[in-house]
């Protein structure tokens, strides 16, 4: 894999939760995180459970508000700080630049799996039929039986839902991809399929930051790792 230009970076990123229901108790998760991820690179976040890996990933997506520091993504040759950008810009970046595969799928009930996967393409202006066809290609690639495509995923198994989620994250090919345990509920066969898809995205120049509990998966996809515990803020 060839490493390209930097796509995502943080500067002195810190996250502290202030729990107003608990008398203003503060929980410092991490501070001083400086990272840079290049095209074609996969940075694995390491650290024990509860050390803040997911919190960091969520800060990179703007799902959690950074307490301090910057999260910058490169778009059309410019760095944009997501922590200072207005909501509309962050939504734009989420459509065009930065994708996120969360651990759990949260979608409107009653919507077919195929339409859930097609949505990121439709938001980019791809015609409905074309978007559905490409969504179907991804679901087929990830081994989701075709008889499930027109059903809403609420009744699917954990592993099936996860593959819908992965397909949704990869379908539009965002230049930056955040993966939170993308193989956690998969059997060995489907784990290989998802690993192959991640490796293909890397080969195509995607910059990836992920959390991978499974050692084999991490070895197969990660080019580097970052131990979040290094940045633990002393409470």
């Amino acid at each position, binding site marked *: 894999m060839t490493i390209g230009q930097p796509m995502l970076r943080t500067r002195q990123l810190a996250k502290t*939760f*202030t*729990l*107003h*229901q608990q008398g203003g108790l503060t929980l410092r998760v991490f501070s001083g995180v400086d990272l840079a991820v290049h095209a074609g690179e996969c940075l694995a976040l390491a650290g024990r459970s509860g050390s803040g890996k997911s919190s960091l990933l*969520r800060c990179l997506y*703007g*799902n*959690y*508000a950074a307490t301090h520091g910057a999260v910058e993504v490169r778009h059309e040759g410019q760095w944009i700080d997501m922590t200072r950008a207005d*909501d*509309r810009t*962050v*939504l*734009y970046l989420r459509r065009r630049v930065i994708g996120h595969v969360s651990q759990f799928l*949260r*979608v*409107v*009930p*009653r*919507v077919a799996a195929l339409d859930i996967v097609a949505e990121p393409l*439709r938001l980019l202006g791809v015609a409905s039929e074309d978007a559905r066809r490409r969504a179907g290609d991804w679901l087929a690639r990830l081994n989701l039986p075709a008889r499930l495509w027109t059903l809403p995923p609420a009744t699917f198994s954990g592993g099936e839902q996860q593959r819908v989620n992965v397909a949704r994250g990869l379908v539009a090919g965002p230049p930056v991809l955040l993966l939170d345990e993308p193989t956690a509920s998969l059997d060995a066969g489907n784990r290989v399929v998802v690993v192959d898809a991640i490796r293909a995205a890397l080969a195509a120049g995607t910059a990836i930051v992920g959390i991978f509990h499974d050692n084999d998966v991490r070895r197969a996809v990660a080019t580097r790792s970052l131990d979040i515990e290094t940045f633990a803020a002393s409470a």
Partner: protein
Amino acid sequence: MTEPLLVVDGAGKRYGTRWACRGVNFQLHSGEMLAVVGESGSGKTTLLRLLAARLPCDEGRVLYRMRAESAAESGTLTDIAALSAARLRWLARTDWGYVEQHAHDGLRLNVSGGANVGERLMALGVRHYGRLRGEALEWMRRVELDTARIDDLPATYSGGMQRRLQIARNLVTRPRLVLMDEPTTGLDVSVQARLLDLLRKLTEELHLAAIIVTHDLGVARLLAQRTIVMRDGRVVEAGLTDRVLDDPQHPYTQLLVSSVLQP
């Protein structure tokens, strides 16, 4: 990037010495859905009524981008307080939709379902019976109402059907801005899910700007890209919906989020 359709600039409404809502600022573009959340009495519905010019602002302004005269130009952003009553009536009947919480406020209960859908078209000058009925049938289908019920009075409809009839009645004139007051409240869960799916599809297809007042944080999460949180007439927090719900900053938002089973 596009220009905003609606600009709310320090809007407020006072009853006597008490401010029902105050200092509200946001902008809304076509294709966006904004959720307004907060408990009863927080000023959500008052805000909606200010936006629809049903109440005058006591401070601040509400600006709306009028339809362009020709396709080449973009419409001008106009203070709705400066518009004539006739102009406002025209906007309310055509370019704006308002889905009421209670069917008796949003529907005419003494005429058929089909006539409810046709009424706003008639206000636009459509008189041809065949066309009115055709549009009514088409919109009943789009909101998944049984077209065999077209001649029945809305009082014979279920709560979920009445809500969908209101949506059809509002959307038939192709409004650009739709305001919805608790559109899923009081409906069975299965009916709610269906309505959510429908609203999501219609706003996407028609590229609507929509504001949805709700106390259901789950509804906000699934429909709205952005959310504002109101308490005692003030906006205490605003931002991307997933950020507001997953990492609430204000003590009141934290209380709200921690009080529901699964926001």
